[in-house]
């Protein structure tokens, strides 16, 4: 009897045992005990103590170093030089730092005020970012309930302009986009003395960050941290005005090229990765380490730390010199390190061949903390992938994300478009090149998925994200003006990729490839506009493509061409009827007609292929302007099928099912799908009956 009671207690004991196991492991989430005393960081040194050699000497300039690039001279017009000394408190998730920003006024006019981004202030309940994310959605965060750990802040402790004194009291939060007075993501300072054209100015800023639990690919999760958008960053003088937008739920970033010298002090158990190249490493007596990084010709700086990263390193020989590849992997994903490296190398190979050289000496690929909302992000020479303990080889999520984020080294990193206003130019063009690269590596129809009999290709996936939101917003919309996050994603990524794939069909694949190469080489290390890109394509192709761009890029027109109707019957049908329906099959002349229909408001020439049962195939061209047209034939053959866009060059048609019509219908596909559904329904029924009765 005792044994039976013991058996009854088995479930209870099991639950308790599992709970203890969980609690035991959960306790390990805290940093190692020895780190605790050093984790409380001392008050940051006064900003004024940090002086650049140049500033100290009174000869302020932007360094022309080439430590981090495989080039013997600077590759960009360097406008900024950031020197930051930062200390990270791994317990409080705070950063205390001093920043010296040297700014070169290349605007051609005197500047009397400077706006700065304070992105970490976005993660506050009343901030525009959170407000928009709650209202219209966001990739990672729904804000169903506000939690204090989601709070982030970026506080300027002191702000000095060298030669003009402490201007901390002059700082003013501004809200250029929506007037939300509670948004503190942009701060502006008026200088008593304007900075003359060609002159340099130095800002000395002491700041304190409270990092949130990861929001928008920035913050901490468990013992991991990703330092993205973590320091005060000056806006961009662009087309005669400051361009410094508030941080929105759908926007990314925009900044000037320059040089970064960053000293990070973190607990000595941390494994660290960052933008640029590591040029110094000091182990301090207080069980911390100070790591120094240098970046050339980049426009942002990000870093990550976790005590559990496993590191894989190798070298890639690029067109301009060796690149140190560094993969920071989660321990449970160590067996995926090779996949990360393989796709990185193959992607680098394609980009260098097709678009242009990768000039940097380093690339850090981070496999971020699971569940941290940090996956799939790009920073200069530093990207995050997205993986999981369950990653079968046929599911190409690792490849897709790593490829995409690497692509941003070109479309954002080097061709530094304005991500606030022209999101399609980084995300969209990058999605297009993602299709091209992944198709070439993993196959056109299997580049996303090839697992358990299921397949999916990148180009159809991109189109799929677009067709559901096709008429909502134009590609050229500002990133923060889309109706919601779904529309932003579908149009910015999916539509742009589909529009550029369709453009290949109009100007030819080779011409398009040449245009992309030309665009990259011409505009790398600059801030091109939409028209720079579109005009490059027109110039290279030698075609006026305004009719297409006006609809596809600037408009919300939706394309949906379809087969309206087909008909095929004997010309002398009345004689056949007299003969009692008997026909001379060989000599019967059929009158066949195909009607095409423009269902959408997007006008574009289309081709149609009409097939007959004697093997004949006819191709027709329609300018697509009228609402409908028809093609008729009299042949000793019956019509079999009609197919619009038979070469599948159009990728923006909203409905691919109505692009073809087969006279003799076949229910095989329907039967196949129905069989799946019958099986699932039966199985579900059995499960219910198994446990229920």
């Amino acid at each position: 009897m005792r044994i039976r009671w013991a058996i009854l207690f088995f479930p209870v004991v099991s639950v308790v045992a599992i709970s203890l196991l969980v609690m035991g492991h959960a306790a390990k989430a805290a940093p190692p005990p020895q780190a605790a005393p050093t984790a409380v960081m001392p008050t940051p040194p006064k900003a004024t103590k940090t002086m650049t050699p140049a500033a100290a000497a009174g000869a302020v300039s932007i360094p022309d170093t080439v430590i981090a690039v495989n080039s013997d001279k600077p590759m960009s017009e360097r406008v900024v030089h950031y020197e930051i000394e930062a200390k990270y408190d791994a317990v409080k998730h705070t950063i205390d730092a001093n920043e010296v920003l040297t700014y070169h006024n290349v605007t051609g006019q005197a500047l009397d005020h400077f706006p700065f981004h304070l992105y970490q202030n976005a993660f506050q309940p009343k901030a525009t970012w959170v407000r928009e994310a709650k209202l219209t959605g966001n990739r990672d965060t729904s804000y169903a309930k506000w939690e204090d750990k989601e709070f982030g802040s970026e506080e300027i402790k002191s702000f000095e302009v060298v030669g003009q004194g402490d201007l901390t009291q002059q700082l003013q939060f501004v809200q250029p986009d929506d007037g939300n007075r509670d948004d503190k993501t942009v701060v502006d300072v008026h200088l008593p003395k304007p900075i003359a054209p060609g002159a340099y100015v130095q800002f000395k800023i002491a700041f304190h960050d409270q990092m949130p639990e990861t929001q928008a690919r920035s913050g901490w999760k468990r013992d991991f941290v990703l330092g993205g958008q973590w320091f005060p960053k000056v806006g961009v003088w662009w087309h005669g005005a400051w361009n410094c937008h508030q941080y929105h739920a759908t926007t990314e970033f925009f900044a000037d090229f320059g040089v970064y010298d960053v000293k990070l002090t973190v607990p000595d158990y941390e494994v660290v990765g960052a933008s640029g190249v590591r040029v110094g490493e000091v182990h301090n007596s207080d069980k911390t380490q100070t790591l120094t990084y240098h970046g050339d010709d980049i426009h942002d700086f990000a870093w990550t730390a976790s005590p559990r990263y496993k590191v894989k390193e190798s070298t890639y020989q690029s067109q301009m010199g060796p690149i140190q590849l560094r993969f920071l992997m989660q321990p449970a994903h160590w067996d995926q390190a090779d996949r990360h490296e393989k796709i990185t190398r193959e992607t680098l190979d394609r980009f260098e061949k097709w678009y242009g050289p990768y000039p940097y000496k380093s690339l850090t690929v981070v496999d971020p903390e699971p569940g941290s909302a940090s996956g799939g992000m790009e920073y200069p020479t530093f990207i995050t992938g997205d993986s999981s303990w369950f990653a079968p080889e046929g599911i190409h999520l690792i490849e897709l994300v790593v490829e995409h984020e690497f692509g941003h080294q070109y479309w954002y990193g080097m061709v530094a478009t304005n991500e606030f206003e022209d999101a399609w130019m980084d995300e969209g063009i990058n999605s297009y090149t993602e299709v091209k690269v992944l198709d070439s590596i993993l196959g056109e129809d299997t580049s996303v998925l090839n697992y358990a009999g299921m397949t999916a290709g990148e180009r159809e996936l991109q189109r799929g994200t677009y067709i559901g939101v096709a008429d909502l917003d134009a590609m050229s919309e500002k990133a923060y003006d889309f109706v919601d996050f779904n529309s932003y994603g579908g149009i910015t990524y999916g539509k742009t990729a589909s529009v550029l794939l369709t453009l290949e069909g109009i100007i030819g694949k080779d011409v398009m490839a040449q245009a992309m190469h030309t665009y990259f080489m011409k505009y790398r290390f600059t801030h091109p506009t939409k028209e720079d890109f579109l005009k490059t394509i027109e110039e290279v192709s030698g075609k006026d493509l305004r009719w297409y761009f006006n609809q596809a890029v600037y408009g919300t027109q939706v394309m949906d061409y379809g087969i309206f109707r087909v008909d095929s019957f004997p010309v002398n049908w009345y004689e056949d009827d007299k003969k009692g329906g008997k026909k001379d099959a060989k000599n019967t002349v059929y009158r066949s007609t195909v009607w095409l229909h423009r269902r959408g408001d997007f006008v574009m020439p289309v081709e149609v292929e009409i097939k007959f049962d004697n093997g004949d195939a006819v191709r027709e061209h329609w300018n697509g302007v009228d609402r409908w047209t028809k093609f008729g034939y009299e042949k000793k053959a019956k019509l079999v099928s009609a197919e619009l866009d038979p070469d599948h060059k159009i990728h923006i048609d909203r409905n691919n099912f109505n692009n073809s019509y087969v006279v003799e219908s076949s229910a095989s596909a329907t039967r196949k799908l129905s069989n799946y559904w019958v099986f699932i329904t039966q199985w579900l029924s059995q499960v219910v009956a198994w446990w229920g009765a």
Partner: protein
Amino acid sequence: MSDGKGLLRRGVGMVAGNKRYILWFWLLNLTLAEFGVAAFRNQAHAILDNSLYSGRLLKGFDVTVFGEMLGKPEFGSTSAVMMPAIYVATLFFVATALFLPGVFQGYASNYRLSREDFFHACGRNLWRFVRLLIVSGVVMGIVAGILFGIRAGLVKAADASTSELLPVQVGMAMTALIVVIMSILRSVFDLAEVDVVLSDQGAVRRSIGAGFRHGFRSIFRLTGSYLVIWVVASLVMVAGLWVWNKMVPPASVLGAFVVGQLTLIITLAARFWQRGVAVAYWQDKMVAPVVRPVMPITPAPAVPVVFEPPLPSGPAAT
């Protein structure tokens, strides 16, 4: 007395001896599902049958094309397609409950139960089963709710760990535990169902009480047998899906149908096997003892014993 293996053997013997029940239930399962899929089929016909684009679903299974089909306004809402599956599942559950008494009667009989007797058993036990199912639904629902709540809490707690696999492992361990506990309860209520039918027990609570008493008294034998069968059914499902995926050509609708239905028949039979085990156990342990009239012992009549003299030895007198 049967041990666990004996129960399994006798249970499978009952299923094998009454294969028609499996056939009927499978036909019911399939027919209901076919009705449930009608809306999906009609919508798919209109979109796929005359389009070359549907070839990407026939010659393989392009997830993006399937997604596009589901997203088309002409296809209608996905809930309109999903809901029939839920209705069908509910109907199959009700039908199963309705006809189970006949099945139990058939399993316990050592002759082929007539159709009349089958339906008589179903009708006679209808309201008893309704009451029994309400009680079992409440008990199993509460227990399952608590267990899944604990599971969710533990997985969430494990998520704070730096071990990525811990939440997965905890989730799997808890799922296994839930299967064990629910199998115990399932066997208890199966015994109660059998007892209601075979004892012709109008007081359902007594059968439930007997189910609990015996279920826990023979927890190893019964739950062990139930879990073995559950594992067999799960393996069959995995194997069936593997064969479907690896050996059936993508365009072979018939091949997929045959493999799928064979898999489902076996998994359906597995549940009947569990019920056979419950009947076998009931026959072993729960059947009320048959009281036979004690015959009076009467003394045998006295018979005179006659001693005959032995035959003389020597040559036989001829």
